[in-house]
């Protein structure tokens, strides 16, 4: 089919617009990456956009030698792995129980769950609850409150209910208990939904900086994202301070080639890389996951 003149104009316009969009989506990453690989003192001279001018790994050396940042990284990994495994396990067991027609109180349970999707106590009552439970300043405050997700339960449940009933029946005839059926048949056959929801849960755990920020004051327990937020925040302060007292800060900067900007860029890259690594492999799953989620809305 030949394109008419108007269609050609449209097509070209769209290609151009999408190229601009793609560029603006990509540039911040690229620029942050370039700055992180550039010598800090050189970056201060300005003009760093697409390519490092004075290539250097020094920023990363400083990041990887900083015990606080490494600790934060370890905490983030621990939190993400433990949080994701426990959440997915607990939520899927819950969801499987909720698929059972003979379950007494199923309807009531379901309403009680859905109600929490529309109403919540809000920030302060939850905060006070965590305080009264004695979870403040503990690693588990990052894992326990999010252990059961109603949203994920509903998606799991829809997936389980779509599985052929014969699978379960034959296992029952072979003498499996309900728990046996779940762990030996249902769970192993739920690959796609497990992948999608694990991805979303893991991303949530990796990215969450707010909850640890308010519940944890012990610096050794803070994940990398919260530490990064504190670094960026102090950078803003420094920028403001340096306006008032520029001589002092420039003196400080002369002493080393790593600046606060180059350092925070390197830290940001380190905190982003895990997501960039997983992302391409799970892309096909999350598109599916979003659609399941939106159908249920």
């Amino acid at each position, binding site marked *: 089919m030949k394109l008419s003149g*108007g269609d050609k104009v449209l097509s070209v316009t769209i290609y151009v617009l999408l190229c601009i*969009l793609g560029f603006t*989506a990509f540039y911040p990453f690229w620029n942050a990456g370039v700055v992180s690989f550039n010598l800090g003192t050189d970056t201060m001279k*300005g003009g760093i956009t697409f390519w490092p001018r004075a290539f250097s790994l020094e920023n990363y050396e400083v990041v990887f030698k900083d015990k606080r940042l490494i600790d934060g990284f370890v905490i983030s990994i621990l939190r993400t792995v433990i949080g994701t495994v426990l959440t997915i396990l607990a939520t899927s067991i819950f969801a499987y129980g909720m698929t059972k027609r003979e379950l007494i109180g199923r309807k009531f349970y379901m309403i009680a769950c859905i109600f929490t999707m529309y109403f919540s106590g809000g920030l*302060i*009552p939850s905060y006070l609850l965590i305080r009264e439970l004695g979870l403040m300043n503990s690693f588990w405050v990052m894992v326990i409150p999010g252990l059961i997700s109603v949203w994920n339960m509903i998606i799991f449940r829809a997936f389980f209910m779509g599985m052929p009933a014969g699978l379960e029946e034959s296992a029952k005839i072979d003498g499996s208990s*309900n728990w046996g059926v779940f762990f030996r048949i249902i769970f192993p056959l739920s690959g796609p939904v497990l992948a999608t929801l694990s991805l979303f849960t893991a991303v949530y755990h990796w990215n969450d900086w707010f909850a640890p920020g308010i519940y944890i004051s012990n610096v050794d327990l803070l994940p990398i994202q919260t530490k*990064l937020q504190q670094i960026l925040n102090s950078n803003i302060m420094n920028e403001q301070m340096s306006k008032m007292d520029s001589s002092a800060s420039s003196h400080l900067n002369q002493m080393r080639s790593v600046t606060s900007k180059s350092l925070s860029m390197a830290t940001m890259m380190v905190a982003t890389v895990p997501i960039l690594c997983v992302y391409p492999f799970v892309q096909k799953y999350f598109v599916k996951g979003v659609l399941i989620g939106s159908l249920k809305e």
Partner: protein
Amino acid sequence: MSQTSIRTARETYSKPNGIVRLLRQWDIQLMVLPALLFIFLFSYVPMYGVLTAFQDYSLFKGFLGSPWVGFKHFEMFFNAPVFWDIMRNTLVISLLKLIVGFPAPILLALMLNEIGNRTFKRTIQTISYLPHFLSWVIVSGFVLSLLSTDNGSLNILLQKLNLIEEPINFLSMPEYFWGILVTTGVWKEIGFASIVYLAAIAGVDPHLYEAASMDGASRFRQMFTITLPSILPVVIVFSILAIGNLLNAGFEDILLLGSNPILRDVSDVLDTYVYRIGIENSRYSYATAAGIFKAVISVGLLAGANYVARRSGNSLW
């Protein structure tokens, strides 16, 4: 006499009482009850906890020992000098986000749909979905770096184009804050939000396009006469959800990008106010009252939007 005893015997046999049936299915109850207890503890207990808004809560006296004060905190909140500023910021920011952020992914989906080259389409999709998976901390780091006066890329660009002489300190000027906030939000979510619309577009019957092009409709025309009307139900459902979220002007993004106290007049919204007063200043009861105020209006907005939508035949529930 014998008949009735047989009947009751059969009834007890075929329909054992509730407790017995419950005990018999202990295994599946064990799957759900711990989770429900959990939901009770972490969702329903805080809902009950909102009653602290009617107390003078103190950490030492606890929930049970704190005195009741009625609507005192609500009155204080409504009469607070910042109340109208906060309301204005909340409404303006969320309306701006709605007006710009809601059509943007639809437009992106429409444009992606016109792309024939699969590799190009895939690349744009992959790049534009990615920011959704980054934390707001990282995104705010990007913004701080791009807008920095200390050789931020935007200032470099504007200076090269001779539009400005001196670098502008974008993040400490109140007039730029709303724009920065909305742009960043769109940048982060446009790709991911377009997934749903792309799926809806994929479901449109291809015969419609064939028939339209036979009749001589241009691609541009087809976009508005076929694609858009076909995905309208999806658009309506999502717009209802967006209206229900109207008071969620943003939280993490405003905390991170608007942390500069100079910006407070334009950056403080209900959620950040609750956080600042409640957690940072420990005025728990007062902050809870502000939170309740927000929740009540949100529910009202959602119900109202749904009512309008039901009139048009596209209800949520």
